[in-house]
């Protein structure tokens, strides 16, 4: 028998068994507090990898590799003299002579021992549960096995409709399987949700094509007829599926405790006190294997707090201890928001309940309050988690509820603010539960010089766990900065201590015409990729100069510099303007011919025009020469500028149309096509209220009425869709254009960089009403200036591609290489559905292998 001896040292030997999230956090904490000077530390982990982020395990299926999820690459351990062994299962503790036995037969002695062995997935002992193609969802290896199996099959089923089961179901769905969930209890997420909440969630999940069987017990699993398995249910029905994933809860991994005779709970778990000591003073237990006050904590935040308490006790710091932890959670499961706070089931004696349910937008919210109605005891949210942060703070800090407590779960009416200002939070309020950071901790960090969210994160670690507290953290940091009298920096970057709006005004009032002049007068240093394109865009908004003029060229982001959109392989796409989506047969033929000649991939875009993909840098001018000869203009798909004006055919063809939406769309597109703006702008015009052009989802939406046009403003699709607001009704053509001129110019003048119109308007004090006052009632006396600004842009329009083709200096920059005529050999296409597409890395290797 070999034995591992601690290095010749007379420090006591501290051994950590288990290198999961909590075991790792323990090591991090003890190093941070200098404990590695007091102890010689050795870590054993059963898994092949060092600790990784199990909370984000599912991201392993959506692009993250093991290295991205890793919590350490071992350097922290190496640098601080911590010995670690992966693939090392500890099988026995001999408490009498304080030694450990490993599976490979080695032994070693310890002075202090920490058990951080986590938990294992429970697999219900259904006959057939050990068949092939059955899995659990806990480790990277589990996920590798699931992925491999999913490649060859079509149907997957998760047994267990709790939090993890639904996350696993989401993963199966992402792997392309037809997915079902089978839950024994009468509702989904029985621990966190009440009956109504569970049934709303079920409806939402079924809405995205996941089959849900609640109240269903599986009797046995046998060979299937159409699929690999058949699951026979207790009620006589059955389900056929190829892959089964068990997610029926977790059990504490307490085998070592049992073997060595440590005190344990009736249903498992290693009993610990407030210092995380087990019944043996020399042995601590932390994380999911530990049982405190007869409770197991299946979340990472309580485990981290236990780790800190154990470190504190080992280093004689009596101020830290573990006294329980809040188990509130919020998550997005299969795209649905779900939140649960405190006593979700209203089990507290005398508690009262408020419920709000909206069957149209599918949301459900419940508040559980104390008998006297003063305190929040718990809450359930399904469908919209924006209420969560506020509710959690009322709950955690026992803040008195407002008079109209129900307002906390009612939808906001008339934009009246609901929610709790961060000012109202007590200093002890927990802001980040993963890292146990209070409002006071943040305030201290700010006082000590952490002047941004990034700095505060660095100092306190707040926000670096599950990320759920990010929005609240930012509010608290900003609030603390304000309280200190520090202005929250709105500087655009380190080179200009101004907002975009300030810079716009400086450029305009001082008639500044180049980046260099602005930098010299009002900035410092040499500029960066934030301020250069922002100033480039402002110069273009105000002076409408050709963007590739020598002094402007280096300001343009690559798309603007080459007047095309860069694709993932470094080639470009080409989008000519097709105003209103109207195009003649001749022009269609030209586009087809060009695409054929240059072997370009061709697609109709989501904006009613045609995109040609796969052109190399050097081909761009040649291609544009042909397109311009046929009467096309640049579509500025690359610029922060007007994209498309989508239109329906309108009254000319459609039997319902009440006005010529086509003509209006084309006129509007031609009017605003030269405008450079803080972000892209999209329009649409519909010929009647049926709204086939989806005008209400655009920055500017126009809908024909019997009396003229209705104007909607500040809508968008994209990441956070928002409908436009009705701005004015029954306008004639001239007034419509006047209002649009003013809205767009006011936006261009006052918005932040990369701020869409919706976010801009929501940020204006007074919002829509204020915008109406400025544009319709001319409250600021600005309207003449705004209209003049726009008419300058309209009058000085130039097609950037046309200008470029006439400028030999500009054309020179479209060479692939300055000293070589060949092409980029890394650009390789393969064929798919009769067109080209970029080859994948693997295909490239194969192609090169063939050639080579």
């Amino acid at each position, binding site marked *: 028998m070999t034995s591992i001896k601690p290095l010749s040292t007379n420090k006591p030997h501290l051994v950590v068994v288990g290198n999961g999230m909590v075991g790792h956090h323990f090591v991090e904490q003890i190093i941070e507090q200098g404990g590695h000077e007091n102890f010689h530390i050795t870590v054993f982990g059963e898994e092949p990898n060092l600790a990784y982020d199990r909370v984000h395990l599912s991201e392993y299926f959506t692009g993250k590799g093991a290295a991205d999820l890793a919590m350490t690459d071992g350097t922290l351990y190496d640098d601080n003299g911590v010995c670690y062994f992966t693939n090392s299962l500890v099988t026995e503790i001999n408490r009498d002579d304080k030694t450990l036995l490993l599976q490979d037969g080695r032994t070693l002695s310890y002075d202090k021992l920490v058990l951080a062995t986590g938990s294992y997935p429970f697999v219900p002992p259904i006959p057939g549960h050990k068949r092939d193609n059955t899995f659990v969802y806990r480790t990277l290896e589990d996920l590798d096995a699931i992925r491999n199996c999913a490649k060859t099959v079509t149907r997957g089923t998760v047994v267990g409709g709790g939090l993890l089961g639904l996350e696993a179901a989401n993963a199966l769905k992402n792997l392309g399987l037809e997915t079902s969930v089978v839950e024994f209890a009468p509702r989904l997420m029985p621990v966190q949700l009440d009956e109504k909440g569970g049934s709303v969630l079920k409806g939402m999940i079924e809405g995205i094509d996941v089959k849900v069987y609640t109240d269903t017990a599986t009797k046995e699993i046998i060979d299937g007829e159409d699929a690999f398995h058949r699951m026979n249910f207790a009620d006589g029905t059955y389900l056929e599926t190829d892959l089964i994933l068990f997610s029926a809860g977790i059990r504490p991994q307490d085998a070592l405790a049992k073997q060595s005779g440590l005190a344990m709970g009736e249903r498992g778990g290693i009993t610990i006190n407030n210092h995380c000591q087990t019944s043996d003073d020399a042995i601590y237990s932390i994380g999911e294997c530990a049982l405190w006050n007869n409770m197991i904590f299946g979340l990472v935040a309580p485990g981290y707090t236990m780790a800190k308490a154990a470190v504190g006790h080992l280093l004689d710091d009596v101020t830290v201890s573990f006294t329980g932890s809040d188990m509130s959670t919020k998550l997005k499961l299969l795209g649905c928001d779900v939140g649960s706070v405190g006593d979700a089931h209203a089990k507290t004696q005398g508690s009262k309940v408020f419920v709000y349910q909206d069957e149209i937008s599918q949301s459900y919210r419940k508040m559980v309050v104390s008998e006297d109605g003063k305190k929040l005891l718990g809450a359930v949210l399904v469908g919209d988690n924006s209420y969560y942060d506020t509710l959690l703070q009322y709950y955690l800090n026992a803040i008195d509820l407002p008079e109209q407590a129900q307002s906390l779960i009612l939808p906001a009416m008339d934009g009246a603010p609901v929610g709790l200002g961060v000012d109202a939070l007590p200093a002890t309020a927990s802001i980040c539960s993963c890292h146990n950071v209070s409002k006071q901790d943040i305030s201290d960090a700010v006082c000590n010089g952490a002047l941004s969210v990034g700095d505060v994160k660095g100092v306190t670690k707040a926000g670096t766990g599950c990320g759920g507290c990010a929005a609240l953290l930012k509010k608290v940091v900003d609030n603390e900065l304000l309280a200190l009298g520090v202005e929250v920096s709105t500087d655009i970057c380190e080179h200009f201590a101004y907002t975009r709006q300030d810079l716009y005004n400086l450029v305009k009032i001082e008639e500044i015409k180049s980046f260099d002049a602005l930098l010299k007068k009002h900035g410092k*240093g040499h500029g960066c990729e934030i301020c250069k394109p922002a100033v480039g865009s402002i110069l273009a908004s105000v002076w409408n100069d050709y963007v590739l003029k020598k002094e402007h060229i280096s300001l343009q982001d690559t798309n603007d510099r080459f007047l095309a959109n860069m694709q993932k392989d470094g080639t470009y796409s080409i989008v000519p303007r097709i105003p209103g989506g109207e195009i003649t047969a001749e022009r269609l033929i030209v586009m087809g011919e060009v695409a054929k000649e240059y072997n370009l991939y061709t697609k109709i875009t989501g904006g009613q025009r045609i995109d040609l993909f796969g052109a190399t840098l050097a081909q761009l001018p040649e291609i544009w020469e042909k397109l311009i000869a046929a009467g096309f203009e640049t579509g500025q798909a690359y610029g922060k500028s007007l994209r498309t004006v989508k239109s329906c055919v309108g009254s000319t063809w459609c039997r319902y149309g009440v006005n010529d939406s086509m003509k209006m769309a084309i006129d509007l597109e031609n009017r605003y096509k030269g405008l450079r703006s803080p972000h892209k702008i999209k329009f649409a015009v519909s010929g009647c209220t049926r709204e086939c052009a989806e005008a209400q989802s655009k920055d500017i939406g126009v809908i024909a009425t019997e009396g003229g046009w209705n104007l909607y403003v500040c809508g968008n699709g994209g990441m956070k869709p928002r409908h436009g607001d009705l701005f004015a009704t029954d306008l004639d053509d001239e007034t419509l254009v006047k209002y649009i001129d003013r809205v767009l110019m006011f936006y261009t003048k006052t918005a932040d960089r990369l701020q869409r119109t919706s976010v801009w308007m929501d940020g204006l004090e007074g919002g829509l009403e204020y915008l109406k006052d400025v544009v319709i009632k001319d409250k600021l006396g600005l309207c003449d200036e705004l209209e003049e600004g726009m008419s300058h842009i309209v009058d000085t329009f130039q097609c950037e591609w046309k200008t470029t083709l006439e400028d030999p200096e500009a054309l020179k920059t479209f060479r692939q290489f300055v000293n070589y005529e060949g092409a980029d050999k890394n650009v390789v296409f393969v064929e798919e559905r009769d067109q080209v597409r970029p080859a994948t890395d693997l295909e490239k290797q194969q192609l090169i292998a063939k050639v080579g």
Partner: protein
Amino acid sequence: MTTQWTLVCKQADLVANAGVAAMVNNEQVALFYLPESENKVFAIANWDPIGKANVLSRGLTAHLQGEWVVASPLYKQHYILSSGECLEEDICLPHWKAKLDGDDVYIAEH
């Protein structure tokens, strides 16, 4: 050993405050011309190891915390032009010494 310099192109081929691509010994090099910097010209690999494409010559140049850098046009990571180091990731790109001699642009052999 004395540095071996390879003539790549003329100053007129460069674009002030921006990059161009060159082919040197079968390797793609991104050349940057920054008239306000001390060294004036810089050369790093054109290959963006994160975006996996030859595009760095087409990124925006910037001056951040005292270093001249280029931002990848694909995913916006910054690379220090004099050392090839990435500011965000643990990556270092191949880089070459470069010099402007009269009208001629040279880079040093590896």
